[in-house]
Protein backbone atom coordinates (compact mmCIF):
# COMPACT_ATOMS: atom_id res chain seq x y z
CA UNK A 1 0.00 0.00 0.00
CA UNK A 2 2.68 2.46 0.97
CA UNK A 3 4.35 2.46 -2.44
CA UNK A 4 1.08 3.45 -4.14
CA UNK A 5 0.80 7.07 -5.16
CA UNK A 6 -2.31 9.19 -4.63
CA UNK A 7 -3.72 10.54 -7.87
CA UNK A 8 -3.12 14.15 -8.75
CA UNK A 9 -6.37 16.04 -9.16
CA UNK A 10 -7.64 15.84 -12.72
CA UNK A 11 -5.60 12.81 -13.69
CA UNK A 12 -8.37 10.28 -13.05
CA UNK A 13 -10.21 11.36 -16.19
CA UNK A 14 -7.09 10.89 -18.26
CA UNK A 15 -6.49 7.43 -16.83
CA UNK A 16 -10.10 6.41 -17.49
CA UNK A 17 -9.89 7.58 -21.09
CA UNK A 18 -6.66 5.71 -21.57
CA UNK A 19 -7.97 2.51 -20.01
CA UNK A 20 -11.11 2.59 -22.15
CA UNK A 21 -9.12 3.39 -25.31
CA UNK A 22 -7.73 -0.14 -25.14
CA UNK A 23 -11.21 -1.66 -25.53
CA UNK A 24 -14.73 -1.37 -24.08
CA UNK A 25 -14.81 -2.00 -20.33
CA UNK A 26 -17.25 -1.95 -17.43
CA UNK A 27 -16.53 0.11 -14.33
CA UNK A 28 -14.77 -2.58 -12.34
CA UNK A 29 -12.84 -3.58 -15.45
CA UNK A 30 -11.61 -0.01 -15.86
CA UNK A 31 -10.32 -0.10 -12.32
CA UNK A 32 -8.46 -3.36 -12.94
CA UNK A 33 -7.11 -2.09 -16.23
CA UNK A 34 -5.73 1.06 -14.61
CA UNK A 35 -4.08 -1.01 -11.91
CA UNK A 36 -2.65 -3.30 -14.56
CA UNK A 37 -1.28 -0.63 -16.90
CA UNK A 38 0.11 1.46 -14.06
CA UNK A 39 1.82 -1.54 -12.61
CA UNK A 40 -0.34 -1.26 -9.51
CA UNK A 41 1.38 1.96 -8.57
CA UNK A 42 -1.74 4.15 -8.48
CA UNK A 43 -4.34 4.10 -5.77
CA UNK A 44 -7.88 4.74 -6.86
CA UNK A 45 -10.70 4.54 -4.42
CA UNK A 46 -13.25 2.26 -6.06
CA UNK A 47 -16.25 4.48 -5.48
CA UNK A 48 -14.46 7.56 -6.80
CA UNK A 49 -14.40 6.05 -10.25
CA UNK A 50 -18.11 6.45 -10.92
CA UNK A 51 -18.57 10.20 -10.55
CA UNK A 52 -15.66 10.51 -12.99
CA UNK A 53 -17.26 8.07 -15.44
CA UNK A 54 -20.61 9.83 -15.38
CA UNK A 55 -18.94 13.17 -15.88
CA UNK A 56 -17.12 11.90 -18.96
CA UNK A 57 -20.35 10.45 -20.35
CA UNK A 58 -22.07 13.75 -19.86
CA UNK A 59 -19.26 15.54 -21.66
CA UNK A 60 -19.77 13.15 -24.57
CA UNK A 61 -16.28 11.67 -24.28
CA UNK A 62 -17.55 8.21 -23.37
CA UNK A 63 -20.62 6.29 -24.37
CA UNK A 64 -22.16 3.57 -22.26
CA UNK A 65 -24.29 0.51 -22.98
CA UNK A 66 -25.47 -2.42 -20.91
CA UNK A 67 -24.03 -5.82 -21.67
CA UNK A 68 -22.91 -9.06 -20.08
CA UNK A 69 -19.53 -9.29 -18.42
CA UNK A 70 -16.99 -12.12 -18.52
CA UNK A 71 -18.44 -13.19 -15.12
CA UNK A 72 -21.80 -13.54 -16.80
CA UNK A 73 -23.18 -10.57 -14.91
CA UNK A 74 -25.05 -7.56 -16.20
CA UNK A 75 -22.69 -4.59 -16.42
CA UNK A 76 -22.48 -1.23 -18.09
CA UNK A 77 -19.71 -1.04 -20.68
CA UNK A 78 -17.94 2.18 -21.59
CA UNK A 79 -16.14 3.02 -24.81
CA UNK A 80 -14.53 6.11 -26.28
CA UNK A 81 -16.41 8.40 -28.61
CA UNK A 82 -14.61 10.32 -31.38
CA UNK A 83 -14.52 13.34 -29.08
CA UNK A 84 -13.11 11.12 -26.34
CA UNK A 85 -10.32 9.90 -28.58
CA UNK A 86 -9.43 13.47 -29.50
CA UNK A 87 -9.48 14.56 -25.88
CA UNK A 88 -7.23 11.63 -24.92
CA UNK A 89 -4.65 12.74 -27.51
CA UNK A 90 -4.70 16.34 -26.29
CA UNK A 91 -4.53 15.39 -22.63
CA UNK A 92 -1.70 12.96 -23.30
CA UNK A 93 0.32 15.69 -25.02
CA UNK A 94 -0.38 18.15 -22.24
CA UNK A 95 0.57 15.60 -19.61
CA UNK A 96 3.79 14.65 -21.37
CA UNK A 97 4.84 18.28 -21.70
CA UNK A 98 4.06 18.89 -18.06
CA UNK A 99 5.82 15.71 -16.90
CA UNK A 100 8.92 16.48 -18.99
CA UNK A 101 9.03 20.03 -17.68
CA UNK A 102 8.67 18.90 -14.07
CA UNK A 103 11.21 16.12 -14.54
CA UNK A 104 13.81 18.39 -16.08
CA UNK A 105 13.17 21.02 -13.45
CA UNK A 106 13.73 18.46 -10.74
CA UNK A 107 16.80 17.09 -12.47
CA UNK A 108 18.45 20.48 -12.81
CA UNK A 109 21.96 20.60 -11.34
CA UNK A 110 23.50 23.66 -9.68
CA UNK A 111 26.06 24.17 -12.48
CA UNK A 112 23.37 24.27 -15.15
CA UNK A 113 21.62 27.29 -13.64
Amino acid sequence: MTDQAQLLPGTLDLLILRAVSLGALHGYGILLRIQQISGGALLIEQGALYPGLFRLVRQGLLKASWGTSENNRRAKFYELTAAGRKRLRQETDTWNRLATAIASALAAQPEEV
Partner: protein
Amino acid sequence: MSFFSTIRSLASAFLQRGQVNREMEDELRSHLQHRADDLQRAGISRTEAERRARLEFGGFEKFREEAREALGGRFVETLFQDIRFSVRSLRRTPGLTVFVIVTLALGIGMVSGTFSMVDALIFRPYPVPHPSGIVTLVSTTHDSSFDDFSYREYLDLRDKTQSYAGVIANSDMKAVGFSADASSTPRVTGGMMVSGNYLHVLGVEPQLGRNFRLEEDQVPGRDAVVVLSPEFWRREFGGDPAVINRHVRLNGVEFTVIGVAPEKFPGMQIFDRPDFYIPLAMAPVFSTDLQKNFFEDRDDRN
Protein backbone atom coordinates in the same frame (compact mmCIF):
# COMPACT_ATOMS: atom_id res chain seq x y z
CA MET B 1 -41.48 28.48 -22.18
CA SER B 2 -45.16 28.22 -21.43
CA PHE B 3 -46.51 27.20 -18.07
CA PHE B 4 -47.59 23.77 -19.21
CA SER B 5 -44.34 22.82 -20.92
CA THR B 6 -42.51 23.90 -17.76
CA ILE B 7 -44.69 21.51 -15.78
CA ARG B 8 -44.08 18.80 -18.34
CA SER B 9 -40.30 19.15 -18.24
CA LEU B 10 -40.38 19.21 -14.45
CA ALA B 11 -42.42 16.02 -14.45
CA SER B 12 -40.10 14.31 -16.89
CA ALA B 13 -37.11 15.40 -14.80
CA PHE B 14 -38.76 13.62 -11.90
CA LEU B 15 -39.53 10.51 -13.92
CA GLN B 16 -36.17 10.33 -15.64
CA ARG B 17 -34.44 10.96 -12.37
CA GLY B 18 -36.03 7.80 -11.01
CA GLN B 19 -34.84 5.84 -14.01
CA VAL B 20 -31.34 7.32 -13.99
CA ASN B 21 -31.01 6.63 -10.27
CA ARG B 22 -32.12 3.04 -10.71
CA GLU B 23 -29.62 2.55 -13.48
CA MET B 24 -26.87 4.02 -11.36
CA GLU B 25 -27.74 1.75 -8.42
CA ASP B 26 -27.65 -1.22 -10.78
CA GLU B 27 -24.25 -0.22 -12.00
CA LEU B 28 -22.77 0.24 -8.53
CA ARG B 29 -24.24 -3.08 -7.44
CA SER B 30 -22.74 -4.74 -10.51
CA HIS B 31 -19.36 -3.32 -9.54
CA LEU B 32 -19.61 -4.75 -6.02
CA GLN B 33 -20.52 -8.16 -7.39
CA HIS B 34 -17.61 -8.21 -9.80
CA ARG B 35 -15.25 -7.30 -6.99
CA ALA B 36 -16.80 -9.96 -4.79
CA ASP B 37 -16.39 -12.51 -7.60
CA ASP B 38 -12.66 -11.74 -7.68
CA LEU B 39 -12.33 -11.96 -3.90
CA GLN B 40 -14.26 -15.23 -3.92
CA ARG B 41 -11.86 -16.64 -6.49
CA ALA B 42 -9.06 -15.80 -4.02
CA GLY B 43 -10.71 -18.25 -1.64
CA ILE B 44 -13.01 -16.12 0.53
CA SER B 45 -16.60 -17.14 1.27
CA ARG B 46 -19.29 -15.34 -0.72
CA THR B 47 -20.77 -13.41 2.22
CA GLU B 48 -17.36 -12.29 3.42
CA ALA B 49 -16.38 -11.39 -0.14
CA GLU B 50 -19.47 -9.22 -0.53
CA ARG B 51 -18.85 -7.55 2.81
CA ARG B 52 -15.28 -6.76 1.86
CA ALA B 53 -16.23 -5.53 -1.60
CA ARG B 54 -18.57 -3.06 0.04
CA LEU B 55 -15.90 -1.90 2.47
CA GLU B 56 -13.33 -1.45 -0.29
CA PHE B 57 -15.77 0.55 -2.34
CA GLY B 58 -15.57 3.37 0.16
CA GLY B 59 -18.36 5.69 1.23
CA PHE B 60 -21.18 4.28 -0.85
CA GLU B 61 -23.62 7.10 -0.04
CA LYS B 62 -21.03 9.79 -0.61
CA PHE B 63 -20.06 8.49 -4.02
CA ARG B 64 -23.67 7.97 -4.94
CA GLU B 65 -24.33 11.63 -4.19
CA GLU B 66 -21.30 12.70 -6.20
CA ALA B 67 -22.28 10.44 -9.06
CA ARG B 68 -25.78 11.85 -9.05
CA GLU B 69 -24.36 15.33 -9.23
CA ALA B 70 -22.06 14.29 -12.08
CA LEU B 71 -25.11 12.95 -13.90
CA GLY B 72 -26.79 16.33 -13.69
CA GLY B 73 -29.91 14.84 -12.20
CA ARG B 74 -29.90 17.41 -9.43
CA PHE B 75 -32.09 19.94 -11.14
CA VAL B 76 -35.26 19.22 -9.19
CA GLU B 77 -33.56 18.95 -5.81
CA THR B 78 -31.78 22.23 -6.42
CA LEU B 79 -35.06 23.82 -7.42
CA PHE B 80 -36.72 22.73 -4.18
CA GLN B 81 -33.77 23.94 -2.17
CA ASP B 82 -34.11 27.31 -3.88
CA ILE B 83 -37.81 27.42 -3.10
CA ARG B 84 -37.22 26.55 0.55
CA PHE B 85 -34.53 29.18 0.73
CA SER B 86 -36.78 31.88 -0.72
CA VAL B 87 -39.59 30.98 1.67
CA ARG B 88 -37.16 31.30 4.58
CA SER B 89 -35.91 34.65 3.33
CA LEU B 90 -39.46 35.88 2.97
CA ARG B 91 -40.21 34.80 6.53
CA ARG B 92 -37.31 36.84 7.81
CA THR B 93 -38.89 40.06 6.55
CA PRO B 94 -42.62 39.53 7.24
CA GLY B 95 -43.54 43.19 6.90
CA LEU B 96 -42.09 43.61 3.47
CA THR B 97 -43.47 40.24 2.41
CA VAL B 98 -47.00 41.15 3.46
CA PHE B 99 -46.70 44.52 1.76
CA VAL B 100 -45.53 42.98 -1.49
CA ILE B 101 -48.18 40.25 -1.43
CA VAL B 102 -50.97 42.72 -0.72
CA THR B 103 -49.73 45.02 -3.47
CA LEU B 104 -49.62 42.16 -5.95
CA ALA B 105 -53.03 40.87 -4.86
CA LEU B 106 -54.63 44.30 -5.24
CA GLY B 107 -52.97 44.86 -8.59
CA ILE B 108 -54.00 41.50 -9.98
CA GLY B 109 -57.48 41.83 -8.52
CA MET B 110 -58.03 45.24 -10.05
CA VAL B 111 -56.80 44.21 -13.46
CA SER B 112 -58.80 40.99 -13.57
CA GLY B 113 -61.87 42.76 -12.22
CA THR B 114 -61.63 45.40 -14.91
CA PHE B 115 -61.08 42.74 -17.50
CA SER B 116 -64.10 40.65 -16.55
CA MET B 117 -66.23 43.80 -16.63
CA VAL B 118 -65.00 44.81 -20.07
CA ASP B 119 -65.32 41.21 -21.20
CA ALA B 120 -68.92 40.97 -20.08
CA LEU B 121 -69.91 44.42 -21.34
CA ILE B 122 -68.15 44.46 -24.67
CA PHE B 123 -66.94 41.08 -25.82
CA ARG B 124 -69.77 38.76 -24.84
CA PRO B 125 -72.83 38.98 -26.97
CA TYR B 126 -76.27 38.35 -25.52
CA PRO B 127 -76.96 34.60 -25.38
CA VAL B 128 -79.78 34.77 -27.91
CA PRO B 129 -80.03 33.84 -31.60
CA HIS B 130 -79.71 37.43 -32.87
CA PRO B 131 -77.79 39.43 -30.28
CA SER B 132 -77.06 42.31 -32.64
CA GLY B 133 -80.74 43.06 -33.08
CA ILE B 134 -81.29 43.90 -29.43
CA VAL B 135 -81.53 47.44 -28.15
CA THR B 136 -82.12 48.61 -24.63
CA LEU B 137 -84.60 51.43 -24.15
CA VAL B 138 -83.91 53.89 -21.39
CA SER B 139 -86.33 56.40 -19.98
CA THR B 140 -85.41 59.99 -19.29
CA THR B 141 -87.37 61.74 -16.60
CA HIS B 142 -87.07 65.14 -15.02
CA ASP B 143 -84.84 63.83 -12.26
CA SER B 144 -82.91 61.13 -14.04
CA SER B 145 -81.49 60.68 -17.51
CA PHE B 146 -81.17 56.96 -17.07
CA ASP B 147 -84.40 55.69 -15.63
CA ASP B 148 -86.69 52.72 -15.93
CA PHE B 149 -90.12 52.79 -17.52
CA SER B 150 -93.37 52.44 -15.68
CA TYR B 151 -95.61 49.60 -16.71
CA ARG B 152 -98.02 51.97 -18.44
CA GLU B 153 -95.17 53.42 -20.44
CA TYR B 154 -94.08 49.94 -21.41
CA LEU B 155 -97.54 49.07 -22.67
CA ASP B 156 -97.56 52.20 -24.83
CA LEU B 157 -94.15 51.42 -26.24
CA ARG B 158 -95.12 47.86 -26.93
CA ASP B 159 -98.37 48.72 -28.66
CA LYS B 160 -97.55 51.96 -30.47
CA THR B 161 -93.99 51.65 -31.75
CA GLN B 162 -93.37 50.08 -35.10
CA SER B 163 -89.58 50.03 -35.15
CA TYR B 164 -89.18 46.84 -33.16
CA ALA B 165 -90.08 43.22 -33.75
CA GLY B 166 -91.22 43.15 -30.17
CA VAL B 167 -90.85 45.13 -26.97
CA ILE B 168 -90.21 43.19 -23.80
CA ALA B 169 -90.06 44.25 -20.21
CA ASN B 170 -88.42 42.78 -17.18
CA SER B 171 -88.02 43.64 -13.57
CA ASP B 172 -85.49 42.21 -11.15
CA MET B 173 -86.57 40.38 -8.04
CA LYS B 174 -84.09 40.22 -5.24
CA ALA B 175 -84.38 37.85 -2.32
CA VAL B 176 -87.42 35.75 -3.08
CA GLY B 177 -88.05 32.86 -0.71
CA PHE B 178 -88.21 29.67 -2.72
CA SER B 179 -89.33 26.29 -1.49
CA ALA B 180 -89.82 23.22 -3.63
CA ASP B 181 -92.92 22.24 -1.63
CA ALA B 182 -95.05 23.57 1.18
CA SER B 183 -93.17 21.79 3.94
CA SER B 184 -89.57 22.66 3.11
CA THR B 185 -87.83 25.73 4.46
CA PRO B 186 -87.70 28.60 1.97
CA ARG B 187 -84.35 29.51 0.51
CA VAL B 188 -83.37 32.95 -0.74
CA THR B 189 -83.21 33.12 -4.52
CA GLY B 190 -83.29 35.85 -7.12
CA GLY B 191 -85.64 35.84 -10.06
CA MET B 192 -87.04 38.05 -12.71
CA MET B 193 -90.51 39.22 -13.65
CA VAL B 194 -90.87 39.34 -17.38
CA SER B 195 -93.51 40.31 -19.89
CA GLY B 196 -95.36 37.38 -21.43
CA ASN B 197 -93.55 37.83 -24.74
CA TYR B 198 -90.10 37.99 -23.11
CA LEU B 199 -88.60 34.65 -24.10
CA HIS B 200 -90.54 34.58 -27.34
CA VAL B 201 -89.21 37.92 -28.59
CA LEU B 202 -85.66 37.01 -27.61
CA GLY B 203 -86.01 33.83 -29.65
CA VAL B 204 -85.48 31.60 -26.64
CA GLU B 205 -87.46 28.37 -26.53
CA PRO B 206 -87.53 26.33 -23.32
CA GLN B 207 -85.58 23.06 -23.42
CA LEU B 208 -88.38 21.51 -21.43
CA GLY B 209 -92.05 22.35 -21.06
CA ARG B 210 -93.51 25.42 -22.71
CA ASN B 211 -93.01 29.14 -23.08
CA PHE B 212 -95.15 31.81 -21.43
CA ARG B 213 -98.40 32.42 -23.17
CA LEU B 214 -99.20 36.01 -24.07
CA GLU B 215 -102.35 36.05 -21.97
CA GLU B 216 -100.41 34.99 -18.91
CA ASP B 217 -99.37 38.54 -18.16
CA GLN B 218 -102.74 40.16 -18.77
CA VAL B 219 -104.52 39.82 -15.45
CA PRO B 220 -102.68 40.83 -12.28
CA GLY B 221 -102.12 37.90 -9.93
CA ARG B 222 -103.95 35.31 -11.99
CA ASP B 223 -101.34 33.18 -13.71
CA ALA B 224 -98.90 31.83 -11.20
CA VAL B 225 -96.52 30.13 -13.60
CA VAL B 226 -92.76 29.97 -13.50
CA VAL B 227 -89.99 29.10 -15.94
CA LEU B 228 -86.79 27.87 -14.25
CA SER B 229 -83.25 28.71 -15.30
CA PRO B 230 -81.24 25.65 -16.35
CA GLU B 231 -78.76 26.00 -13.48
CA PHE B 232 -81.49 26.40 -10.91
CA TRP B 233 -83.32 23.41 -12.34
CA ARG B 234 -80.25 21.24 -11.96
CA ARG B 235 -79.40 22.57 -8.52
CA GLU B 236 -82.85 22.31 -6.97
CA PHE B 237 -84.37 19.44 -8.88
CA GLY B 238 -81.33 17.47 -10.02
CA GLY B 239 -82.31 18.06 -13.65
CA ASP B 240 -85.47 16.02 -13.21
CA PRO B 241 -87.74 16.37 -16.27
CA ALA B 242 -90.75 15.57 -14.07
CA VAL B 243 -90.48 19.09 -12.65
CA ILE B 244 -92.97 20.34 -15.23
CA ASN B 245 -96.39 20.99 -13.68
CA ARG B 246 -94.92 20.74 -10.23
CA HIS B 247 -96.06 23.27 -7.68
CA VAL B 248 -93.37 25.32 -6.00
CA ARG B 249 -93.64 28.23 -3.60
CA LEU B 250 -92.26 31.70 -4.10
CA ASN B 251 -92.63 33.83 -0.99
CA GLY B 252 -95.27 31.32 0.10
CA VAL B 253 -97.36 31.67 -3.05
CA GLU B 254 -97.91 28.57 -5.10
CA PHE B 255 -96.55 28.64 -8.66
CA THR B 256 -96.71 26.00 -11.37
CA VAL B 257 -93.50 25.15 -13.17
CA ILE B 258 -94.22 25.34 -16.89
CA GLY B 259 -90.76 25.19 -18.42
CA VAL B 260 -86.99 25.20 -18.12
CA ALA B 261 -84.93 27.73 -20.08
CA PRO B 262 -82.31 26.27 -22.44
CA GLU B 263 -78.71 25.72 -21.31
CA LYS B 264 -77.37 28.37 -23.63
CA PHE B 265 -79.57 31.04 -22.13
CA PRO B 266 -78.24 32.00 -18.70
CA GLY B 267 -80.22 35.23 -18.74
CA MET B 268 -79.79 38.71 -20.13
CA GLN B 269 -78.14 40.17 -17.05
CA ILE B 270 -74.42 40.67 -17.21
CA PHE B 271 -73.39 39.87 -13.67
CA ASP B 272 -76.48 38.18 -12.35
CA ARG B 273 -78.24 35.02 -13.37
CA PRO B 274 -81.89 34.83 -12.48
CA ASP B 275 -83.00 31.54 -10.96
CA PHE B 276 -86.47 31.74 -12.46
CA TYR B 277 -88.84 33.86 -14.56
CA ILE B 278 -92.42 34.70 -13.70
CA PRO B 279 -94.93 36.93 -15.53
CA LEU B 280 -94.89 40.65 -14.70
CA ALA B 281 -98.58 40.31 -13.93
CA MET B 282 -97.64 38.48 -10.75
CA ALA B 283 -96.02 41.61 -9.37
CA PRO B 284 -98.80 42.42 -6.84
CA VAL B 285 -98.14 39.13 -5.09
CA PHE B 286 -94.68 40.33 -4.22
CA SER B 287 -95.52 43.95 -3.57
CA THR B 288 -94.80 45.21 -0.10
CA ASP B 289 -96.79 48.37 -0.56
CA LEU B 290 -100.48 47.73 -0.99
CA GLN B 291 -101.17 51.38 -1.76
CA LYS B 292 -99.18 51.26 -4.95
CA ASN B 293 -100.70 50.17 -8.19
CA PHE B 294 -97.91 49.11 -10.41
CA PHE B 295 -100.18 48.49 -13.36
CA GLU B 296 -102.03 51.79 -13.32
CA ASP B 297 -99.58 54.33 -12.01
CA ARG B 298 -97.79 55.86 -14.94
CA ASP B 299 -95.14 57.36 -12.70
CA ASP B 300 -94.29 54.20 -10.83
CA ARG B 301 -90.91 53.45 -12.31
CA ASN B 302 -89.74 51.05 -9.67
